[in-house]
Each structure stands twice: as structure tokens, then as C-alpha cells.
């Protein structure tokens, strides 16, 4: 799957999880940039990403994710 398609799908997930229909994601965006990106929403986000892309993250994948860019790269490696 091409990165721009991953970004489009991911952006939709972010908008639903964080309740913001106009949210634009970037590779540099991290939990520090969104007030709503708390521990519970992070769990929901990861679960939704796994469902939508039909993938399963390993714990080491999750711990490597520092920002949206890392998330895109790990999703890409699993597709």
C-alpha cells in the first residue's frame, strides 16, 4: 500500500478517535501535540489502526513509535 493511502486512512482514524473532523496529521505529530492524545485514546487509536489495516502490532513495534511517522513506517512494513 502506498504511503499516501496509508496516511489518508490513518488520518480518518485519528479524526474519529480524537473527535476532530478537520484534523490534519503529519509525520512529526506526536502525543505531545494533541491534548486528547491521552493513554486511553492511545489504546483506542492502536486498536482502530489494527482493525482498519488488519494488522497486529508487536509490543516492540508499539514501543518504537515516537510519532505518526513511526506509525506509518511500521504499518507500511506489515502490509
Amino acid at each position, binding site marked *: 500500500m502506498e504511503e499516501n493511502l496509508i496516511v489518508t486512512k490513518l488520518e480518518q482514524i485519528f479524526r474519529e478517535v480524537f473527535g476532530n473532523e478537520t484534523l490534519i496529521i503529519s509525520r512529526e505529530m506526536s*502525543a*505531545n501535540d494533541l491534548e486528547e492524545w*491521552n*493513554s*486511553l*485514546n*492511545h*489504546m*483506542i487509536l*492502536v*486498536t482502530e489502526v489494527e482493525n482498519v489495516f488488519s494488522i497486529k*502490532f508487536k*509490543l516492540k513495534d*508499539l*514501543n518504537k513509535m*515516537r510519532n505518526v511517522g513511526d506509525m506509518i513506517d511500521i504499518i507500511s512494513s506489515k502490509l
Partner: protein
Amino acid sequence: MPKYIIREATVNDIDFIIEAIIEAEKSGSEILSYSTVFNLSENELRKIFRLMLLEEIDGCEFSISSYLIAENDNTIAGTIGAWVEHEISPSSIIKSNLLGYYLPKSSIIYAALRAKITSELHIDHVIEALSLEIVYIRTTHRGNHLFELLSDAHIKRNKGIKELAVQVMANNDYAIRTYERYGFKQSFVIKSDDEMIKQFLPFNEKILMKKTL
């Protein structure tokens, strides 16, 4: 006054660390927020917490490396779980990665449906401060200045830190008095007027306290 030694926690302390996490979360009440938020029994959570702690991932309350243990005559008396919060690796994300990995998906969905209520008392950790997250002294050892001993030891092993932070439920008078005696001052108070919140959390008001070194 009993003589205590303070040491780093090891994997052999897991049972006590789990007890500390559960008792600290209950904050003197019978409500365990992990249980109410994720719809799991305390026994189910104990098993999950054990698996999380055995991962030995640093930087949150489910990290063995966060804990210092106070012992008297080879008996554990208390512990404080603490770490320095860094912007690049928020403890909340480290914790939720562990929880999300081990919790049943049904629990995450259950929590998601109630997220609006439970997130009302969320207070961010203070960046670059030493966060004292889990504070638990067994009742028979209270009044023996173990909070001070353990906090001093945490400060010593985190050289260069300039600030301590602790979050406490506003009805936990004993803990608040203990923190104030040590030099903490109330920095921020958050309260929820949602009547439902006391079904999920021990109280509807939380305080962030800070101490500058």
C-alpha cells in the same frame, strides 16, 4: 523507630509492586479504577499487571525499574514508583502500549465508551520532573517517615532533577499532609461534577502537587 534499608526493586518484588499499584490506585477506597474502567476483576488485573511488569520496559508505573523498596528485617514495608517524565517518551503512552497489548479488546472497547467521563480528571505529567506515581506504605509501617526515606533515595538516584510532582485524590487527607510535610505545594486542582465519575474513580477531585528542589 525500626531501621529500614532502601533498595532497587527486582523481579522478585512483583507481587508487592502489584499490591502497591492496586492499593495506591484505590486511594483508600474500594474502587479500583482499572477494574471499573476496563470491566475486569481485581484477580484478572493482577495477572495482566504481572505480564506487563515482566516485560521490564522502563518509564512508567508498570516498570520494575521505577520502584525503590523499603525493607525492615527482610520484610517489605513500602515502595515508591517514580521516574523522570520526558517529552519524547510520555509515560502515559508507555503505559497504554503495555495495557493495550495485554488487555482483552473487549475491555478497551468498554473503556472507550466511557472515556469522556473518566478522562475528566486527567492531569498531564510534569515534563522533566520526577513523578512520584505509586506511593504505598504498609499500614503497620506508617508514621515511620518512609515516604521521606524513599523520596530522598529517588532524588539521589536521579541527579540533576529540579522538581518533584505527585498527583493525589483530594479526599486523601493523610497523603496530602504527608506530601505537604515533605515540602510539596498544591499546584493545580481538577474536579468533575459528573455524578457518574465516582462509579469509576475513588473521588471526583484530584490535585497536582509540586516541590521545587
